[in-house]
């Protein structure tokens, strides 16, 4: 058996001793620091003396912005232009989409899909657009699409420029990389308030928040693609006497094509996700319909707007992913040239216009809100509670709240503040480096200083509960998928769809099932984070060195022994990554859960936005950023950091 765990036995004692040393050091520091801190400020929640009340200065800042929005040169000549440009371009795209009519848009979408991805996706695209129309959501879909088009173009432009800079200059790469990495882990909600502060609620703020959220993946992947080019190819190009621009245009950019298209794909998906969330700050369109419907717990209406969102997400994802994949098969049979696609679109649009069929025909819509709401009512009546033996969904939610969420929350809030910091430090240091530990502790302390200790711990308790559930389910499913091809084949399409859906959409079914409250927010977070955890776990287990596994088998290890003694230890890094991703994703949705009764920080942000009380919202937003940073750093494995340095 000793040979099975070859990589571990030698490292384990070292690790153990190192871990012990770290803990010892921390305990020592605690023994020195805690008594005076405790006697001075007490051991309960974050001491009031250590908080800084930011609401006054923030309120005055926001007042100043509101007062000066129409007069200060900064707004007149800079933000004003940006704002106008955004409004104009969104308007222009929207009008173009409406002018093309539903036939034109559907035809164009299908032709583009056909061109880059083949017949099946073309049919799927057409069907998706027609479904949007049939659900009576054509106009909101076009609103969302118009906003998306502008936001994606801007994100791609910004991301490509940043990525190009980071790809070509080592210094810029070192400067940009941590910023982009951090932006990636922050919940979408945190981006809303700063833009609202500057631009006010409306389309410009929505578009800009989307750009800020969606540009980083493009920048990261562009830089990655440019840096990942085969050095020998670049050397060969240089040896032929290429100038720097020639090198960039004929070699580096074409070589990075796959990454660039992947960046486009991710940017589109994140933009869609954010464009929906940005309905909270006036984005309009489908997201707004979902938001309004959820606010009045009208599941039918929410679903009618949610289905087009999911369809849009799946179609956009598949088509752009196919474009990225298609680069390898260079000589795929030509389908239709771009000029022809455009010509057909124009012809179809003109034809529809001449026939007077530009708007979606009123008779063709399918009202699903009614029947869905009836079904939900039936569920409420029959499934919510009192189902024999298993209980009802509302019962489960209630039990989950009283037995898990409440004890965790009160436990966290009962802990002395310094104990929380100590736990954070210990976890972060054990998993990562002293650097990550320091960042995590500082982020947690910042939350206390901001004066939102209690709601943050409330959010944290939801996150912890959701992460625990996610990891149990995710690891189980991941292990099953890794050990059985059949399970993996069955899971894959489900995971594919779930990973592409905008975060907001997850709230619809949980509200239908569990009503509103903290439990549904946790449920939505679990559903949202699960696919990523399952996928990373399965991949990590499958990538375990087959030779190690084979040698274990040759020694007669049972399936269980193989799993526990070979696969899991060797896949440790992937498992840690799964935890990290799980935590980040769960936080994003727990925050959004504030909209459906999750309370805590997410509610503060939404409340601040709704009431125009930007100070409250901004403080909550800053706390979300700190919480996100802390959770990411606590779960950040050392390897990831080591790789960054190389």
């Amino acid at each position, binding site marked *: 058996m000793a040979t099975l765990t070859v990589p571990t036995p030698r490292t384990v004692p070292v690790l153990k001793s190192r871990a012990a040393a770290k803990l010892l050091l921390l305990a020592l520091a605690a023994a020195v620091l805690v008594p005076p801190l405790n006697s001075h400020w007490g051991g309960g929640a974050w001491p009031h003396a250590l908080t800084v009340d930011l609401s006054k200065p923030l309120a005055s800042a926001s007042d100043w912005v509101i007062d000066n929005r129409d007069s200060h040169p900064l707004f007149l000549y800079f933000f004003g232009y940006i704002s106008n440009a955004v409004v104009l371009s969104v308007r222009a795209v929207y009008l173009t989409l409406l002018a093309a009519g539903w036939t034109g848009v559907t035809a164009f979408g299908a032709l583009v899909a056909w061109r880059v991805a083949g017949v099946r996706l073309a049919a799927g695209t057409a069907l998706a657009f027609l479904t949007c129309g049939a659900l009576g959501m054509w106009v909101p879909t076009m609103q969302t699409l118009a906003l998306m088009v502008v936001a994606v173009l801007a994100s791609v432009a910004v991301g490509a420029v940043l990525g190009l800079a980071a790809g070509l200059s080592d210094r810029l790469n070192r400067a940009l990389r941590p910023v982009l990495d951090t932006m990636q882990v922050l919940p979408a909600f945190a981006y809303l308030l700063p833009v609202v502060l500057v631009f006010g609620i409306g389309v410009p703020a929505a578009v800009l928040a989307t750009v800020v959220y969606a540009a980083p993946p493009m920048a990261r992947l562009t830089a990655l693609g440019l840096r990942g080019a*085969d050095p020998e190819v670049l050397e060969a190009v240089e040896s032929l*006497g290429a100038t720097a621009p020639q090198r960039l245009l*004929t070699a580096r950019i074409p070589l990075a094509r796959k990454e660039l298209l992947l960046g486009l794909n991710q940017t589109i998906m994140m933009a869609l996700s954010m464009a929906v969330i940005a309905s909270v700050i006036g984005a309009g369109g489908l997201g707004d319909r979902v938001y309004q419907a959820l606010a009045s717990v009208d599941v039918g209406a929410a679903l009618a707007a949610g289905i087009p969102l999911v369809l849009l997400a799946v179609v956009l994802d598949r088509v752009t992913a196919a474009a990225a994949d298609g680069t390898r098969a260079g000589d795929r049979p030509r389908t239709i040239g771009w000029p022809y696609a455009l010509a057909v679109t124009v012809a179809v649009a003109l034809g529809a216009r001449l026939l007077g069929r530009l708007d979606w025909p009123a008779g063709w819509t399918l009202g699903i809100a009614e029947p869905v709401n009836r079904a939900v009512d039936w569920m409420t009546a029959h499934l919510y509670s009192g189902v024999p033996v298993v209980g009802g969904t509302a019962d489960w939610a209630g039990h989950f709240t009283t037995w898990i969420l409440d004890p965790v929350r009160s436990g966290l809030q009962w802990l002395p503040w310094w104990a929380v910091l100590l736990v954070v430090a210990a976890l972060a240091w054990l998993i990562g480096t002293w650097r990550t530990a320091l960042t995590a502790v500082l982020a947690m302390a910042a939350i206390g200083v901001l004066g939102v200790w209690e709601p943050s711990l409330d959010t944290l308790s939801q996150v912890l509960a959701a992460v625990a559930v996610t990891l149990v389910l995710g690891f189980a499913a991941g292990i099953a998928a890794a050990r059985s091809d059949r399970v993996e084949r069955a899971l894959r399409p489900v995971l594919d769809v779930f990973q592409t859906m905008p975060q907001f959409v997850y709230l619809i079914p949980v509200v239908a099932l569990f009503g509103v409250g903290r439990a549904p927010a946790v449920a939505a977070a679990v559903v949202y984070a699960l696919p990523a955890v399952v996928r990373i776990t399965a991949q990590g287990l499958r990538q375990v060195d087959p030779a190690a596994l084979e040698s274990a088998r040759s020694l007669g290890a049972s399936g269980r022994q193989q799993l526990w003694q070979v696969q899991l230890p060797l896949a440790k890094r992937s498992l840690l990554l799964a935890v990290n991703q799980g935590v980040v994703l769960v936080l994003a949705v727990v925050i959004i859960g504030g909209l459906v009764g999750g309370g805590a920080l997410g509610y503060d942000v939404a409340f601040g936005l709704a009431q125009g009380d930007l100070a409250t919202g901004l403080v909550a937003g800053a706390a979300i950023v700190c919480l996100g940073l802390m959770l990411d750093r606590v779960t950040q494995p050392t390897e990831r950091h080591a790789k960054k340095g190389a």
Partner: protein
Amino acid sequence: MTLTVPTRKPPTTGTPVFSVDGLWKVFGPKADRIPADPELSTLSPADLRSRTGCTAAVRDVSFDVCKGEVFVVMGLSGSGKSTLVRCLTRLIEPTAGTIAIDGEDVRAMDKARLRELRRHRAAMVFQHFGLLPHRTVLDNVAYGLEIQGVGKSERRERAAEFVAKVGLEGMEKRRPGQLSGGQRQRVGLARALAVDPEVLLFDEPFSALDPLIRRDMQDEVTRLHREEGRTMVFITHDLAEALKLGDRIALMRDGRVVQLGTPEEIVSSPADDYVREFVRDVPREQVVTCRTAMRPASPQEATDGPAVRPDAPVAEAIEAVAHAGTPARVMDEGTCVGVVDHEQLLDVVAGVPAGSRVGRATPPAPRTSPEDV
């Protein structure tokens, strides 16, 4: 293993194509000081690294590459040979020393001049081919011309010619990903040839290929060299390849050239133990020529027995002697310049260095008369 040694012409005199003198390439912090400092420059690689944190990849290397010759730089991995060839066109900037191409100082060139050098005068073939995966074979071959600004139709026409020359007709529309390793390297070769360079630089071009394909490609290079007489600098870690292709070989170790000479010189008189160890398993009879192995002929020997050319490998003489049972005469344009008999031939095969055996320098003792055989 058989080695077919092509007939070699003596290196042409006149101005060398590349002339390298006292070349250094040191990687690491403040690398400049090392070549200049007599104390540091003589340190062993390990000492240098521990003292300064620097690695000297190329240490004080000097050689000339003559027009029309195949100059092979051979050494094991880490010996600095790949760095050396990259220094020639400053793909890696040398630390010290001079490089001249046709008498022009390469290190003094400005960017434009250097680009001109890379575009027209020296083209390189790479170990892992360095092809652009998104372009067709034809466009890959035409790439060097495209860089130079040659119009599309003209460069494609010229590229097609070179695609044919390396035997890839009919594959113009394929992409590198659809080719085998050998075919890819043919594309790399065609790309280098298409710009009509004065010198071809090969950086271990066939190391990544299967043995059979490798032999094909070596024959291809031999053929191209015979047809075009282009100057070539060839980097390899494969001794057999070096002996097969090289007119002259520079053997490198730890950044230094430990021996520079014709294949025969390297095999028959290794400069030190390292080289001797290196060439130990080489079938010497395939490399050493009769001119080197022969001894002066006694008058009666000069008139009869089988005849061999002076630059024929010893293997040929062995065959002749074995068949005839008498010493073979080494005939140069009708006159006998010496003879080889069992003794010389066995010395070559056994690797006994010339002159190391008692009585070797004197004419043969009577005991080795042909009747004894």
